[in-house]
Structure formats: structure tokens, C-alpha cells
């Protein structure tokens, strides 16, 4: 029995008659995030079906997490489940989600919701038409530090934001099983679409709408960008974002406002630095039980169960993230390549 399963069962959703749910995709995100959360609640576990087109992958996770049923074709459960969690490579979010939504099945979709704002809008529209929920796992909105920034900006005690600087640099180490991030024929973007999904979602959420793109640069040579730099503006506020899969640098954000500054470490969920006026930086500790991603996953999953069963609103819905997806589209459309003189490879000697 795994360590996770040896923990006492904790019904996170508060529902004793949980809906029948399918988890589609048995890759890294299912293993590291959804299943540890889903299997904390034995009520959910008993009504769960795992789906993956690779039988061995589904079987492996079913065994590890003691899920009784696994299948290879999600069409088998189209008319059977009440809710579905979509954890497949990004380019498959749209077609699979559309199928379930059109059958009246509630969907919780992994981020990024879609490869383009057009597809995301179609998904939101389909959910509206069939009267079901389209929840999205933009989990970082639930993290106390990011939520505190939103709260401080909304209450306006620091005045209007004047600048936002946001850097996320980490070498790519996600244990992707399918390699879909990098497999050119099926991949749908690089670091902008991946790390940028959260970063630009925060920015749009904090500002209340999509900012105006000023410039966008990246390092792609016809493949997937691994480093991206974006500048934007919104009313009085200017901003810059740097994202990298190639190097680790301090992952931080800073929002300078008219009467103070908010700073944070992207991975410190429990505190931010706040400077009011010309005073000193003050560390604000944020009390929360949500210390890890699995803690957040439990919240997301529990909410989704109540969305399906009790028509509760999703914590984050598809329509909430349309602005950021549109902004990322704009970044791709406007992108120019960085000046990288080390790639000015001279003509190879013919050596003949």
C-alpha cells in the first residue's frame, strides 16, 4: 500500500454520495496531483474510473492508488459519468472537453484550458449551452500569497498599481510521460503557454482585465520557446514578465503601487512582503492549511464534487481565464526572437 493510502481517509468534499467521476489521462499530473487528492476521499475513490489510451499507464496508477476500474477509451464512459477531470496533453483538452460538455457532463480541465482563446471560448460557450460547469485547474489562484495580492489590490489601500514585475525561471524537470511538451507534431506551445498560464492569469486577475501587450520576445527557432520576455501596460501600470525553462533564477513577483509595494516568492505560499508608504518591508504571514500542491488539489477536487452534485460554482471557471489565454495568444502573434549571437553559426567548412 502506498504512503498516500496509508493516511487516514479524509472526506474532503463532504459528500457521502459522490458522483461518478472519470479521470482522463494517467500521466504525471494525474499521478502527482489529482490522484493523491482523489484517493484521500474513499467515497470518491469508489466511484472513480481511470482512463488512458495506454493501458499500462492506467493499470499502473490504478494499482498504485487502488482504483478498481480503468479503461483505455473515454467514449465508454461518455454517458456514464456525471463529471470528468481532463488531464491529457493540452492539444486534447478542447476536443475531449467538448465531447463531454455536449453530453451534459461537468468538466474540470487541467491548465492551460486550451491552445487558443478561440477554442477556450468554444468550450465556455458549450458549457453554457448545455447548462453544465466548466471548471479549470488554475490552482494558483487558491494559493494564499497570490490571493492576498488580489485582496490588497482590490481594496485599493495601496492605491493603483504602477508596475508589475514577474519572473519565473526554473529548469524544466516535469516528469512528463508522453513528452507532449516537446513533441513537435502534438505540442501546443512552450514556456509561455505552460508557466505563462499561471503568471498571466495572475496578472489579468489582479488587474481585473487583460493588459495591453507592449512587446514579446522568445527564443524559439520554429519549435517551442524555452525563454520568453513580455512587456505590457494597463492604465497607469507597466509590467514585465520573464519566463524560463532553461535556467533557475529567483522566482518572484513585485507589484509597485502608488502607496506601497507587494513582493512575493512564487513558492512561498504562506507569506508576502508588504511595504506601506515609505515604511520598511513587513513580512505578512498568511495562515493557511494549504501548504502543498496536493492540499490545493484536495480543495479543487472537493469543490468539483460539489459542483457536480450540488451545483456549487467552480472555484475557477473557464470564463475566468479567457483573458489570460487571449493575452498569451497575443504574445505568440507579436513575438520576435531574442538577439542570440552565439547562434550565429558560421558556414561549416566543406572539408572536401
Amino acid at each position: 500500500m502506498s504512503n498516500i493510502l496509508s493516511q487516514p481517509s479524509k472526506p474532503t468534499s463532504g459528500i457521502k454520495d459522490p458522483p461518478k467521476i472519470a479521470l482522463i489521462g494517467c500521466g504525471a499530473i494525474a499521478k502527482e496531483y489529482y490522484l493523491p487528492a482523489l484517493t484521500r476521499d474513499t467515497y470518491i475513490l469508489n466511484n472513480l474510473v481511470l482512463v488512458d489510451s495506454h493501458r499500462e499507464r492506467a493499470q499502473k496508477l490504478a494499482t498504485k492508488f487502488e482504483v478498481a476500474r480503468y479503461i483505455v477509451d473515454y467514449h465508454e464512459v461518455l454517458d456514464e459519468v456525471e463529471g470528468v477531470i481532463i488531464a491529457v496533453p493540452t492539444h486534447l483538452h478542447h476536443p475531449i472537453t467538448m465531447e463531454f460538455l455536449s453530453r451534459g457532463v461537468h468538466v474540470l480541465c487541467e491548465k492551460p484550458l486550451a491552445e487558443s482563446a478561440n477554442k477556450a471560448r468554444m468550450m465556455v460557450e458549450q458549457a453554457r449551452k448545455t447548462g453544465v460547469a466548466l471548471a479549470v485547474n488554475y490552482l494558483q489562484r487558491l494559493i494564499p500569497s497570490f490571493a492576498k495580492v488580489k485582496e490588497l489590490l482590490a481594496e485599493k489601500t495601496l492605491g493603483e498599481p504602477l508596475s508589475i514585475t514577474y519572473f519565473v525561471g526554473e529548469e524544466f524537470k516535469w516528469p512528463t510521460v508522453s513528452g507532449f511538451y516537446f513533441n513537435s507534431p502534438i505540442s501546443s506551445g512552450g514556456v509561455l503557454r505552460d508557466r505563462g498560464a499561471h503568471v498571466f492569469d495572475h496578472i489579468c486577475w489582479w488587474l481585473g482585465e487583460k493588459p495591453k501587450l507592449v512587446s514579446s520576445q522568445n527564443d524559439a527557432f520554429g519549435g517551442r520557446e524555452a525563454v520568453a520576455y513580455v512587456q505590457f501596460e494597463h492604465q497607469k501600470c507597466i509590467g514585465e514578465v520573464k519566463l524560463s525553462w532553461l535556467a533557475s533564477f529567483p522566482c518572484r513577483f513585485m507589484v509597485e503601487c502608488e502607496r506601497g509595494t507587494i513582493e512575493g516568492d512564487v513558492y512561498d505560499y504562506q507569506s508576502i512582503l508588504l511595504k506601506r508608504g515609505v515604511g520598511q518591508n513587513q513580512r505578512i504571514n498568511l495562515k493557511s492549511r494549504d501548504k502543498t500542491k496536493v492540499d490545493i488539489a484536495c480543495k479543487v477536487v472537493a469543490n468539483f464534487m460539489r459542483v457536480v452534485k450540488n451545483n456549487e460554482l467552480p472555484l475557477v471557471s473557464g470564463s475566468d481565464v479567457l483573458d489570460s489565454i487571449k493575452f498569451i495568444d497575443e504574445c505568440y502573434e507579436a513575438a520576435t526572437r531574442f538577439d542570440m549571437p552565439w547562434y550565429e553559426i558560421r558556414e561549416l567548412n566543406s572539408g572536401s
Partner: protein
Amino acid sequence: MAHNETILITGASGFIGGWLAETLYLSSSAADVRAGIRNWSRAARLARFPIEFVLCDVMDRTQIAKAMDGVTCVIHCAKGSEESIIEGTKNMLDAALRFGIKRFVHLSTAEIYGNPSGEIDETFPYQYTGNPYGDSKIEAEKVCWDYYGKGVPVTVIRPSIVYGPFSETWTVRFARNLQSGNWGTFKGYGEGICNLVYIADLVSGILLAARHECSIGEAFNLNGPELVTWNQYFQRFNAALGLPDLRVFQPSSARLRTMIMEPIRSSAKFALAHFQGPLKRISQRFRPAKELMKSAEKSIKTTPRLTDLSLFNRDAIYLTTKAQKMLGYKPTFNLDKGLEMSVRWLKHLGLVDQTRKDTGICGRIITSA
């Protein structure tokens, strides 16, 4: 490269393998590149190019067979454990023999010469030193010659100290050390020859070797155009980074620091190997513990090991006369040019501190409460 060539590069997500694949793509070579990687987690760099990827763990014969299908030339850059260096090379050569591969270029190292002094050409004998990397590369070369005898058209490349963008060992590590303020020049230790070759020069040498028929059955040293000492490398790298003058460590002080740090380094390695989880939790929970660990890590990383001091003191020059004569190898990046590229790359990735005014690309927000 010739038309209708398909080149499989093993270890393509690594420093040299990545450069080879990128260079072949950017130079509009007629050859098709197939990038062999062990897993996807380090593919981000190469995925910026629309290059074909194949899973090719050199310890997995099934993957090798799939990766090798339709290939005309193999450039074997994969490394890893001693076992994968030796057995992995054997697996690749075995497949090359079965598939009738036209060219097999094996990336070895000048470390196979051990700790020599003086001018070293390719006739210098193997020297085992107890260094697992160098010793296993000797074994891998022996496997190469064995398969050459069986008919595999093998060429062996022995690079010296390869630096430049994406070099973790000789560029990123030293940039961080220099920036830490704890690094310096080492009197009595840093006067050995550094044998630097810029990555683009090495890559052009490898591709020349892959192209020339005369290189089959031969080994080639590949080195740079300029001979400098290690202390000179540190000084010039430091200047290129725009940092204040380096401190000078006297021989006794350099050795003492290293001797003190050796047991600390071993203990830290043991602790990380056996207690990584608890240490991570402690550092997450207690800020002072996190600061202490960071400070210890910095000291360990910025103090040379005994093996480093020995390398910095090595008085050997790896000659490239053979490569120049047989392949037309002409390294063109002198140290200033190579360092300029390296520093621009380091700044681009935010791997060195810079003020936000420098480039506007990547400043650092560092503020503490």
C-alpha cells in the same frame, strides 16, 4: 554533411549533443538530425528547434534499435554512470554493426591521458587515475577499437576543456563562483594549462571528423587556439563579467580551505543522499535553517576540490596537429571571443546578476524583509 544523411546524436539533450543538433539545424546542412534523448525532462533546450526526437537510452537495446533505423551516421555523445559510458557505448556499437552504419563518431575526452605533463598527442598511452569518468572513458574507447576491428567505421574525438553557452561545468559553475566573491586565483595551483576549446570550435571539429573518410579508425584531440593558464582563465572570465579584481589565494591558504571543506562536502553529500526529504522539510519550515543550508552550499560550491587543484596545476598541452592536418580543423574562437559569447548567454538566461538597466531582459528582484 552529404545529402540523404540521417545523423543520430545520442545525449542530444546534453551540452555537446545539444550544440551538435542545433548547429546541424542552423547551418542548413542537408543531413537530417535525429536527437536521441534518454527522457523528456531535459528536452526543453532542443525543442526550440523543429528537430526529430527519439527516445534512446543507451542502456535500452530496444530503444537503440528503433532510434538507429534508417540512420547513416551516429555521433555518440551520451554519458552518465560508468556502466552507461562503457556498456552504453558497447550497445550503440553493437547496433551500429548490425545496422551497417556508415560512420560512428565517439565522443571521448582528453581525460583518458590521465595527469600527464608536456605536449600530448594522440599516441600518448591511456593512463588510469582512479577518476571514474576518465577511467570509464578509457574502457569505452577500448570497446570502440574492438568494434572497429569488427568493421564499424569508428572515429574517436578527445576534447579538452569545453566551455561556452550551456556548459554547466566550465562556464556556469565558474561564473557563479566568480560572482560569489569567494573565488580567486590560486598561487602555486592555478598555473597549469587550461586547454580551453569553445563549443562551436569543438562542434565544427566533430562534424569535420564525421565527414572525412580519412578519420575512420583514428582518434583526434580537439583543443582551442589559445593557451592560457587556469588563473588567466579566471581573471579574464572575471573581467568579462565586469566583476571587481579577484583575490589571490596563497598556496597554503588555498590548500587549507580545500582540506577543511573536503569532510564538510562529504558529510553534506551523505546527508543529501540519505536525508533529503527531512532536510527539505526543515528548510521549508525554519527560515534560519534554510539560510544556514544555503550558506553551507555556497561555501562548498565555491571552494575548489582537491581534484580541482590538481587539474588547475596540470601542465599538459593537448596537441591538435593531427586534426589540423587530416581534417583541416581550425579553431577560430580565441578566449576573448568565447568569453564574450558566454557572458552574453549567461546574462540572457539570468544566470549572473545584472542590474535591470543592463539589458532590460532579466534583472533580479531581491529584497528581504
